[in-house]
């Protein structure tokens, strides 16, 4: 607990980081209370089609071509973006941390093979890889999460490997080996917890980029057809861009706010957890 308070003291020194955290909290609240803010299905026709924002009371963000409430879409879309963003990041962290930890702890031949593999995956343009995987295995939320995580774990693996390489030579790890502790136990209870700070920092930015990737997929028509996401809304609105550009603008602003908040939180975490870089 004391650690947490100390961390918060460091974190709150950056005005923008606090602003980012507040905005993110706001998006979380909207996602949590989606059913309260706009009850019902965002796919349902709610009013007259093509209402401009503010044109009619009850539809502050207007309606789309089929009379669907854009506010409802934005509110429910936050759930999709956050869920896919966090799930994809968790899966990518699991993959990356596992591969990086094994490579860094064992070193030698294992390290060579795993790092070569990591480099190969990193060479493939990640969005193209996501596109190929989702296109071939059909666009469902689960497949989208898998595709994003499969394409984005390499930086995590490299980061964790570097931490493990330096940590395994340290005295406290050597002491554990001398004490006869088992390898899995050393890795999980001694080295891993000490290597997580940079992973925490990178994870926030990874959620942001996963959200952008999901939105791009949905925009290209490869989103989960059953869920209303911000990218899907923009893809729908694109067809009436000439007459009703607000249908594209509003969900886009929601994406920007969320992604910006996550990036700011990432920076704040970086400054608070990396004392050496503070003040840059």
């Amino acid at each position, binding site marked *: 607990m004391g650690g947490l308070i100390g961390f918060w003291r460091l974190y709150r020194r950056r005005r*923008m980081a606090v602003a980012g955290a507040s905005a993110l909290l706001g998006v979380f609240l909207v996602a949590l209370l989606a059913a309260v803010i706009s009850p019902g299905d965002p796919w349902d026709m709610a009013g007259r089609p093509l209402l401009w924002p503010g044109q009619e009371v009850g539809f502050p963000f207007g309606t789309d071509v089929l009379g669907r409430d854009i506010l409802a879409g934005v509110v429910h879309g936050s759930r999709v973006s956050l869920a896919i963003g966090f799930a994809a990041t968790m899966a990518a962290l699991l993959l990356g941390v596992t591969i990086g930890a094994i490579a860094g702890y064992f070193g030698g031949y294992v390290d060579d093979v795993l790092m*070569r593999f990591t*480099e*190969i995956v*990193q*060479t*493939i*343009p*990640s*969005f*193209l*890889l*996501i*596109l*190929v*995987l989702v*296109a*071939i*295995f*059909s666009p469902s939320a689960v497949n989208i999460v898998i595709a994003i995580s499969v394409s984005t774990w390499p930086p995590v693996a490299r980061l964790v490997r570097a931490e493990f390489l330096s940590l395994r030579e340290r005295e406290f790890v050597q002491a554990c080996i001398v004490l006869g502790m088992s390898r899995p136990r050393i890795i999980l209870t001694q080295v891993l917890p000490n290597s997580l700070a940079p992973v925490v920092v990178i994870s926030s930015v990874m959620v*942001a980029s996963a959200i*952008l990737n999901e*939105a*791009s997929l949905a*925009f*290209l*028509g*490869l989103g989960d057809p059953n869920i209303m996401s911000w*990218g899907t809304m*923009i893809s729908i609105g*694109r067809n009436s*861009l*000439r007459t009703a*550009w607000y249908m*594209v*603008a509003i969900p*886009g602003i929601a*994406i*920007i*706010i969320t*992604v*910006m908040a996550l*990036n*700011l939180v990432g920076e704040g975490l970086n400054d608070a957890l990396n004392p050496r870089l503070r003040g*840059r």
Partner: protein
Amino acid sequence: MWQGAITIVAIAIFNFCLIHMAPGSPVDVLAGESGTADPAMMEELTRRFNLDQPFHVQLFSYLWNMAQLNLGQSYRDNQPVVTLILARLPATLLLMASAIGAAFLFGLLLGVVSARFVGRAADEGISFFALVSYATPTFWSGLMLITLFSVKLGWLPSSGMMTIGSDKTGLAFMLDVGRHLILPTLSLSLFYMAIYTRLMRASMLEVYGLDYVRSARARGLSEARVAFRHVLRNALLPMVTMVGVQVGSILGGSVVVETVYGWPGLGRLAFESVGRRDYNLLLAILLFSSVMVIVTNLVVDIIYTLLDPRIEHGKK
């Protein structure tokens, strides 16, 4: 070089595995949606890729075909995949070069200005602009730019690479393509410009603090000369590295931007092949893009040694 070759083979193997893991038989995947109708063609495919043979024979024959640049046919267009890709390549290269150029140039300028006026209004403004640009989806900025510059103001074309039906040549043709290029370049470069701005700012600030800059000032050199001759050159190195790192990501971004603007490049081809379930073409684009990433990184390594002679190739 060697490493690049291994990577390409590995990606080809990965593609082969994808063809086998995809729902439906490999023949269906290779033939795309048009395949199932024509038994003769299915037979031809099976024979060429040895799909009736054991797994390792199939893999070997797939790789052998790849090595001969025989990436198969796109049965939708009834053309070899390689021909289709090469036909779309120039448009994508033009867009990428122009986007990287714009991102690099504006990122450099904004970064230098930001670092010179650190903590002041100009710095804060530029930093905020970079922050927003870094969070903006490329397809969204693309659509908004179309709304503003094509729909509302009518200044710039909203799609395609040249005016349809015009038979312009020479300079008029280049100007026409240039006009079509502006908006796609802007949307694709915005994200990377944000990265370069922040990188340039940070590395300028770092170099400003070094001793040799102080001694340059002590010798009475002008502020501009210090900034451009002593700081900028050394701050450029991380920028060049970044270009190498970002090529893959820019290729991915071009899928979205080319789709928004109907730009007839590789990205648009990838999008079209998804729509037609032409997986053989899609996988070939994936492989080809990876080759482009490898080649760009080789070029970046060479530029790197030119910028900083202390870095020698092959030494660690």
